[in-house]
């Protein structure tokens, strides 16, 4: 009876019950949709960050923190071998590659541009940009004076695959080195900044240009992005045990853009959820206060028959539990429908700092449902506390006098 008295009371006041459920469901659905949208956006940025940085990188903290005065941060082949050996102990390890990056100047005709010249291991399958090539071909292992340039830079320099550009840079000894490079291909990337500033050349040729046998970082690919932090901790421990003055940093630690955007998303969702919770709280508070007020005499009767205050509270609080459960569940269902409908529209937009439009989408998952569900549930239950406590605390004789 404790179960269905509240249910029947809700059914009896169908219009008010439906209104309350609709408000809770609406709040939950909006929260769900916004969270699903932000999660999808976060996924896109995460994928782009991992494509740019790998799962984690191992390098000197001097390099990570831009505190190097010379080239003391470069890793020797022995260091790379030691690191590589330790990586084989990591269960989630899939692949590793190395990079060497220096600033330089690129020129074509009378146009010049400051760039970052990154030496990569072509065909390594890890951050070799082969999947981003939009014209020409990716770099090959046996390439020598070949370069992959970004689409924005190619447009700016008015060059295309097969053309030559001149790159000028400083070797580790401080000597200038200028060399013509043949454009093997043009890549497109999510970030306009990357496209306009990053040149990719084969590692061996790069080491020749910079006059070093070293690299500046080891990049690690893992089989599961969720394993990154734990893998970082284990790898860092092994590096420390090997006595190397290096650090392992994850892709999100290396990507300030992701960190800033992620914090912004958290703030946005937090604010929206708070606003919706406050709205749901006050509307449900008003609805329940009115509903319980209309039943003052019923409360008096229940108490006169020997129902304790705690039992009256339980009866009335149970009604809000049902409201909250039904409203929140319907809200999650509504959120799923809204999100799927939105995905079906396939709306495109150009995010700031990008060169390609991306499709606005939502990601529906368990986590997208749980948080809005719990927030609505909590807001509704909190809003019912006062009316239920008020109902339980009524003096019997006063409650019986109510019209």
């Amino acid at each position: 009876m404790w179960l269905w008295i509240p249910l029947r009371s809700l059914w009896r006041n169908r219009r008010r019950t439906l209104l309350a459920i609709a408000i809770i469901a609406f709040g939950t659905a909006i929260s769900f949709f916004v969270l699903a949208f932000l999660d999808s956006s976060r996924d896109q940025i995460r994928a782009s960050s991992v494509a740019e940085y790998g799962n984690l990188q191992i390098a000197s903290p001097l390099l990570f923190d831009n505190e190097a005065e010379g080239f003391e941060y470069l890793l020797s082949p022995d260091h790379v071998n030691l690191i590589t050996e330790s990586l084989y102990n990591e269960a989630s390890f899939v692949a590793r590659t190395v990079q060497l990056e220096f600033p330089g100047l690129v020129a074509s005709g009378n146009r010049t541009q400051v760039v970052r010249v990154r030496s990569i291991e072509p065909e390594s399958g890890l951050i070799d940009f082969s999947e981003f090539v939009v014209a020409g071909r990716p770099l090959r292992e046996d390439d020598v004076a070949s370069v992959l340039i970004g689409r924005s830079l190619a447009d700016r320099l008015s060059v295309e695959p097969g053309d030559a550009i001149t790159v000028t840079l400083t070797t580790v000894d401080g000597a200038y080195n200028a060399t013509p490079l043949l454009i093997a291909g043009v890549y497109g990337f999510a970030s306009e900044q990357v496209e306009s500033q990053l040149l990719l050349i084969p590692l061996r040729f790069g080491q020749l240009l910079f006059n070093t046998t070293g690299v500046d970082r080891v990049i690690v690919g893992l089989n599961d992005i969720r394993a990154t932090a734990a893998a970082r901790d284990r790898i860092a421990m092994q590096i420390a045990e090997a006595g190397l003055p290096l650090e392992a940093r994850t892709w999100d630690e290396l990507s300030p853009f992701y960190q800033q955007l992620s914090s912004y998303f958290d703030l946005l969702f937090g604010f929206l959820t708070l606003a919706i919770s406050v709205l749901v709280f006050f509307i449900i508070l008003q609805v329940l206060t009115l509903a319980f007020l209309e039943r003052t005499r019923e409360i008096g009767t229940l108490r006169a028959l020997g129902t304790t205050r705690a039992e009256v509270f339980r009866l009335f609080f149970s009604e809000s539990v049902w409201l909250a459960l039904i409203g929140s569940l319907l809200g999650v269902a509504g959120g799923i429908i809204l999100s799927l409908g939105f995905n079906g529209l396939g709306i495109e937009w150009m995010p700031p700092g990008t060169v390609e439009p991306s499709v606005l989408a939502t990601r529906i998952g368990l986590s997208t449902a749980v948080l809005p569900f719990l927030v609505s549930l909590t807001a509704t239950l909190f809003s019912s506390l006062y009316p239920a406590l008020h109902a339980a605390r009524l003096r019997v004789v006063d409650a019986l006098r109510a019209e």
Partner: protein
Amino acid sequence: MENNGRFCHVRGDRFLETRDLSKTYAMGTETVHALRDVCFVAPQGDFVVINGPSGSGKTTFLNLVSVIDRPSTGEVLIEEQPTSSLSERELAALRKSKIGLIFQSFNLIPVLSAAENVEYPLLLQRIEKHERRKRVAGLLAEVGLADLAKRRPSKLSGGQRQRVAIARALIARPKIVLADEPTANLDSETGASVMELMRGLNDEHCVTFLVVTHDPAVSDYAKRHVRILDGRLQEGGEDVVVDSTS
């Protein structure tokens, strides 16, 4: 009233007793004395009809002896146990175990069927389902509502609702039933039938009844008459005084 062979002997104990019971209300700057130093004793099995004009203090008296309200001064004793020091929880326990209440407006729970309304006090007492159902069916049959057990109060006539209320008041086998104007919302024929029923239950189950009423017809069913006037209780034209030392 005829007892048709059934008769519950009034036992000379002090089942219900009030000592110097007073209730005052503040109305603005004035103090209203709703009840003044009422001393009253009802033994088990009694059927007391309390009457008096509107505003005389009848309902206040009933509220106090049914422990849904607390007196300003004085004491209500049930089975010789004082109630003024009991907590809200203890008073609720007392109401559900020893007191049955019948209201002028029936006060049935609208979302419950007739049977469920009657069953509710047993639910409060955590009585096992099978036993609950058995007792409800028996009592509904006794008040002539066996066929209407599943109907909601809104689908019952006034007389039928009051019968449900009577069954609800009796289902937990209380020692006393307090009825406030039980016939006020009923026509005279239905009122008479309800009173017949109450008096019959009094005779058969030896339950003490205190019936507050305006209705002179109700007096015919009383074993004892009491009148409340200006907050004072009179029996046989004299203020009732009880020797609390006896």
